[in-house]
């Protein structure tokens, strides 16, 4: 029983980071109607950027964060321009395969870089963000935990406001509904999709900062499993929905934390799979996900 609260906190931490990544998936899917499987690897690039800046270059922390966000945004922009834009209008399958290709390309480039520079791709951060902690009874909540939760909540609300209340946000909604009509109303579709990728990648960079602050390691393959789970979270919550992505992320995080903490040792190793079982059950019961819109094709 005394494990309950700490496990919940673990789940919330993990879930909040999933949520940030799921936001990126959901935005890109919602607006560009494509699954950017390389999205998870953007986090990995962000984490390596942090590692290089902090451990090797000894830059001040604030500068490090800005560099990570810039690197990821530029990466998102370039990947979209080079790999996805030429395929706009071709079959979704071609785009999907390309995205998987980009994902492996990024992983291998990171592996190459880390192996040459550090001799090994898995690297550990010294704890770089110490924000103290709060002790309530026998439960300790660290400052980093709070930072993760608050950042995720603020970003979720910010994104919802941005989409609803700004010019660019409305253009995104219009592009998501009907690219052709949006274009004929003077909306620059290519620019809008670029902005979507930039914002999604910036969110991935923020996720990588929080991830590195909490779990303090970086690895070339960290993004892929993490990305798949975040994708599952986005689908769970209803892909295309911003609050759905966050709720999905938190639920997947909590399920994972609880299955790791409470399942017996031998089953425990399979805790990664557990979240996906729940996802399948969810999709059978409600195919559009928790907050997904019911879309019925008119006949």
């Amino acid at each position, binding site marked *: 029983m005394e494990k309950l609260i700490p496990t919940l906190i673990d789940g919330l931490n993990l879930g909040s980071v999933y949520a940030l990544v799921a936001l990126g998936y959901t935005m890109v899917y919602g607006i560009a109607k494509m699954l950017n499987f390389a999205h998870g690897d953007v986090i990995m690039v962000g984490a390596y950027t942090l590692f290089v800046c902090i451990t090797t270059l000894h830059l001040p922390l604030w500068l490090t964060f800005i560099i990570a966000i810039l690197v990821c945004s530029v990466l998102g922009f370039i990947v979209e321009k080079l790999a996805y834009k030429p395929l706009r209008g071709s079959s979704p399958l071609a785009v999907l395969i390309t995205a998987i290709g980009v994902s492996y390309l990024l992983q291998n480039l990171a592996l190459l870089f880390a192996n040459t520079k550090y001799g090994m791709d898995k690297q550990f951060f010294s704890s770089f963000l110490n924000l103290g902690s709060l002790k309530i009874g026998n439960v300790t909540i660290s400052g980093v935990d709070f930072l993760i939760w608050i950042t995720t909540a603020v970003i979720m609300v910010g994104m919802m406001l941005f989409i609803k209340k700004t*010019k660019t946000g409305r253009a995104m909604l219009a592009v998501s509904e009907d690219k052709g009509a949006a*274009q004929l109303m003077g909306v620059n579709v290519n620019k809008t999709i670029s902005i979507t990728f930039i914002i999604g990648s910036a969110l991935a960079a923020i996720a990588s900062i929080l991830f590195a602050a909490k779990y303090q390691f970086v690895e070339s393959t960290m993004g892929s499993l993490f990305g798949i789970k975040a994708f599952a979270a986005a689908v769970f919550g209803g892909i295309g929905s911003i609050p759905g992505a966050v709720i999905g992320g938190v639920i997947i995080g909590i399920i994972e934390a609880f299955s790791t903490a409470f399942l017996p040792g031998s089953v425990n190793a399979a805790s990664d799979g557990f979240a996906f079982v729940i996802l399948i059950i969810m999709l059978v019961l409600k195919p559009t996900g928790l907050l997904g819109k019911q879309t019925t094709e008119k006949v």
Partner: protein
Amino acid sequence: MTVLETKNLGIDFGGLHAVSELNLKIEQGMLYGLIGPNGAGKTTVFNILTGVYKPTFGTFYLNGENLTGLSPIEINKKGIARTFQNIRLFGNMTVEQNVMVALHNEFNCNLFESIFRLPRHFKVEKQMHKKATELLEVFGLSKEKDVLACNLPYGKQRKLEIARALATNPKLLLLDEPAAGMNPNETAELMDNIRFIRDNFNMTILLIEHDMKLVSGICDELTVLNFGTLLASGKTTEVLNNPEVITAYLGE
């Protein structure tokens, strides 16, 4: 002043001459009708004029400027806006948002200003709200401004499409079957709306329509297309009494 002029405009799809040698000349403030049997190539003409299709032959000019080959966004910025035969509103956005999307290029406010909510963001949003409200009022849609576009009754969806097209601040407005699916009352109201736009926005309008009551009621001039070629052109009453036109519509 001539607003739209097309010179020998034509397009082939494979071996099919969908439109050929089309010459139109539309003067400022005119209500011009483009009619013809189904499959005559009317919507194809709209698709060429808005940049969706690139013409295979010929050129077209807006206020004397050659727009042939420009992209849909560029053409929209130059001043041609349209509605669609099968309504293409942004269904999951509100009525007001639909209009505000189309105001996109008229108001400037960059991403940075929007994200950090600098004063200009609020100023621009306020101006856009005001302009959108004015437009919605013209079409009697102010009460429904927060309704999702997909939940509007059909007749109002058609009107919202016109309001949205007008929001891009065009010089030439293309209406693709604006009265399709409307009942006689709605059509009569629509005719008033179209006249109102012409007079108050000083607009030049080219419309495709099958409803002959609407066509004969409001169009100053007509062009009749049949199998992609011009069958007749001129003053509405003359064209509608042309025996060839009657044959094309009703058969021998």
